[in-house]
């Protein structure tokens, strides 16, 4: 009876304790108390080409350093020479992110890493981490073609370039873009690391650890060889690097049969081209407003201006629109298209190309002239090319006069600026022009940098406008680009042999230009972009907030194999050049069976349609817009050390993150370790002693049984 009661009461107590655990227990992780994880990190990654590696590398288990904010020259001296707690993790104010400071950091062994604060306050007048002569080895000018013009002997295109993007750093470099996160780091620094009265701060100090360990090393040849070895002989193959690749967008005024390779008819094409990509020092950061968006917006607006007139009065020649991806990295997209054209594996052939008009950087015109750059060598060598180019220039002059745009030619002996047209010239001497807002060197002071954004392009809106109002507000920049687009459209029409009487009907709509500009430099998540894209893409989150980034990157991405900017341009082109059909969704995805639709001539897009309340919902658009693979021919031919084609690859990595925490002095760490080892040895000693003297110590318990008798 008593035993039962005792059992019940014990069980009751156990139940009570378990119930208490469920109500008031909470997980209190030690790791969270120590480390503050920084989200939204923007690293600098390692890129490799045939001969070099560029970018940044950290150790496999991250690089830790005591924080120090670099605000003045004395801070620089403290970090590099006098500070007593090396290695330091430098928090660099914007003004100090320059070539001289970074190279001094590179040569010092006291720097564990750099975190650059990205803001416009304190920004220098110009900052271009790109080289002074972009793509100098893969353009048309070489020892064999215009040697006196090669390597920027005549004109330095990017004189403000400091070449930082092409340096190799052995420590991680991150960018701090989020103001709140920077504040957290600053607070930790101010609480623990400040120097009081010139004396060194005391431990514990605030430190930061940056992880960005890159797998690839040396150059593309080595990396691809090792990847190959891994794939063949290892059980768990590790891929070390991937070639930069994406897709070019192309379209033509008269639809082309996509399945036929190498046009054999006598059709003649005028190519209108621009680039789709940009880059900066950091990974996936590339607002590229003046460098790239100005060209994209102009060409898209020109397409919009041309199409109605082309339907009514088609010109004799076909116009081929091309948007090349990867041009920042030795002309990936254009070299691939020219390569395919040469081997007759593309829908058109180099024989069919009549002439080419490329749109370079045209955004910073501001009442200045537009310049038509041409290649002096081909004009000298071939009289037909000279004739055609002069014709083109004359046409453009007459059109520009009617438009009140001042157009001019740079000095006759000046070479072409870096442009996709140079790759076409390498294959065949075709007449062509490159339109730009700079006479000699670039006007863009932030070429290929994080600061080439809306502010650099002078895109500004009056205050107190809602996003929808901003979308359609015609800024000065939009009006300026609309004028350029009209010029381009009319010139293309004339170049294609169209009638002069129709020219005045070709005008770019400033509203479309304003919408394009808003979508590409301010905010991609707007109602117009939403209406142009398929519903499943918008659901996958392709329209996140902020402007799109133009770095080419690698596939696959979260929303599919194609880069977001390529998809935007593809769908905008479909909207501008396509016709609405009344196919259903399944029919739109597989139009093979329908007799009136031709999958060879057109591509079919299922788009969302307007998001307004009284709209009809998604519909199917038929347009002659296609994607073509933009991966360097060097990878197809497996010539990873090629000097003719781009060999750029991006390294792979496991994790990229950053965290902030407090560190103790080395002496304290050693002391803790020493005490621990001492306790271990002591316990071993005591155990040995106890076990050897066991009989003596524990004998009393054993003696008694023998004496009971």
């Amino acid at each position: 009876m008593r035993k039962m009661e005792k059992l019940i009461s014990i069980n009751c107590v156990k139940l009570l304790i378990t119930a208490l655990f469920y109500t008031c227990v909470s997980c209190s992780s030690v790791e969270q108390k120590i480390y503050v994880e920084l989200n939204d990190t923007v690293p600098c990654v390692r890129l490799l080409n045939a001969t070099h590696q560029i970018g940044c590398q950290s150790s496999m288990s991250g690089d830790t350093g005591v924080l120090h904010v670099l605000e003045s020259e004395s801070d620089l001296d403290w970090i590099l020479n006098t500070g007593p707690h090396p290695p330091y993790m430098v928090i660099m104010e914007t003004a100090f992110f320059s070539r001289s400071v970074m190279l001094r950091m590179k040569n010092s062994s006291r720097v564990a890493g750099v975190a650059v604060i990205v803001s416009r306050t304190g920004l220098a007048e110009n900052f271009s981490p790109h080289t002074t002569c972009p793509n100098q080895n893969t353009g048309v000018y070489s020892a064999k073609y215009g040697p006196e013009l090669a390597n920027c002997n005549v004109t330095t295109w990017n004189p403000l370039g400091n070449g930082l993007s092409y340096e190799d750093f052995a420590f991680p470099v991150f960018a701090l873009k989020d103001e709140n996160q920077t504040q957290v780091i600053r607070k930790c620094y101010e609480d623990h690391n400040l120097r009081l009265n010139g004396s060194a701060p005391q431990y514990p100090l605030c430190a930061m650890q940056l992880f960005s360990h890159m797998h690839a090393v040396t150059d593309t040849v080595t990396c691809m060889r090792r990847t190959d070895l891994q794939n063949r002989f290892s059980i768990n193959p590790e891929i070390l690097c991937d070639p930069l690749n994406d897709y070019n967008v192309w379209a033509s005024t008269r639809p082309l049969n996509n399945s036929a390779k190498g046009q054999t008819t006598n059709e003649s094409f005028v190519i209108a081209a621009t680039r789709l990509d940009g880059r900066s020092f950091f990974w996936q950061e590339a607002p590229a407003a003046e460098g790239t968006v100005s060209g994209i917006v102009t060409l898209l607006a020109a397409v919009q201006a041309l199409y109605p007139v082309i339907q009514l009065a088609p010109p004799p020649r076909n116009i081929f629109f091309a948007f090349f991806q990867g041009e920042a990295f030795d002309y990936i997209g254009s070299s691939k298209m020219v390569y395919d054209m040469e081997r007759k594996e593309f829908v058109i052939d180099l024989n069919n190309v009549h002439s080419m008009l490329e749109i370079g950087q045209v955004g910073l015109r501001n009442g200045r002239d537009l310049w038509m750059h041409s290649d002096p060598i081909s004009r000298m060598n071939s009289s037909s090319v000279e004739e055609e180019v002069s014709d083109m220039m004359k046409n453009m002059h007459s059109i520009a006069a009617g438009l009140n745009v001042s157009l001019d030619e740079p000095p006759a002996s000046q070479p072409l600026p870096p442009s996709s047209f140079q790759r076409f010239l390498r294959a065949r001497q075709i007449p062509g022009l490159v339109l730009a807002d700079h006479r000699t060197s670039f006007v863009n002071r932030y070429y290929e940098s994080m600061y080439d954004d809306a502010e650099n392009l002078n895109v500004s809106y009056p205050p107190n406008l809602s996003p929808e109002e901003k979308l359609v507000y015609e800024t000065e920049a939009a009006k300026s680009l609309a004028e350029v687009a009209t010029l381009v459209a009319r010139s293309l029409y004339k170049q294609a042999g169209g009638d002069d009487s129709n020219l005045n009907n070709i005008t770019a709509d400033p509203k479309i230009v304003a919408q394009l500009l808003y979508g590409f430099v301010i905010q991609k998540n707007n109602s117009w972009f939403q209406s142009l894209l398929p519903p499943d893409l918008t659901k996958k989150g392709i329209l996140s907030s902020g402007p799109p980034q133009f770095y080419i990157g690698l596939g696959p991405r979260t929303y599919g194999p194609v880069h977001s900017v390529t998809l935007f341009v593809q769908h905008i082109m479909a909207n501008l050049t396509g016709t609405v059909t009344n196919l259903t969704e399944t029919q739109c995805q597989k139009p093979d069976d329908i007799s009136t639709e031709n999958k060879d001539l057109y591509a079919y897009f299922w788009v969302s349609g307007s998001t307004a309340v009284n709209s009809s919902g998604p519909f199917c658009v038929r347009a002659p817009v296609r994607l073509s693979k933009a991966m360097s021919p060097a990878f197809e031919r497996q010539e990873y050390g090629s000097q003719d084609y781009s060999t750029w690859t991006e390294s792979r990595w496991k994790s990229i993150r950053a965290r902030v925490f407090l560190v103790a002095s080395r002496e304290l760490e050693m002391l803790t370790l020493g005490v621990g080892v001492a306790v271990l040895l002591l316990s071993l000693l005591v155990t040995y002693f106890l076990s050897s003297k066991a009989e003596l110590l524990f004998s009393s318990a054993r003696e008694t049984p023998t004496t009971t008798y």
Partner: protein
Amino acid sequence: MNLERIPNEEKLSLCRRYYLGGFAFLPFLWLVNVMWFFKEAFLKPAYTEQPQIKSYVKKSALGLLLWVAVLTTWITIFQHFRARWGEVGDYLSFTIPLGSA
């Protein structure tokens, strides 16, 4: 196996087998031979088979030293120069470290 309980002839044959086996590019057999039979060969009071065991142990020790020298040299050279050898280095390696030369 406890050497105390084995008759001397078997000890000799064991020692010989380990010695001969080491010639098949198995230096660890020589190492085991030296460690195991050291006490038998040099520290125990003399018995008939001991001189032969002693000679086997000495020869195993010699072979072992040679192997250690060769391997140490090769490993030092490889670790130091592998990165510089480029393609050859990669083909000779079993695992190549990620992210560093």
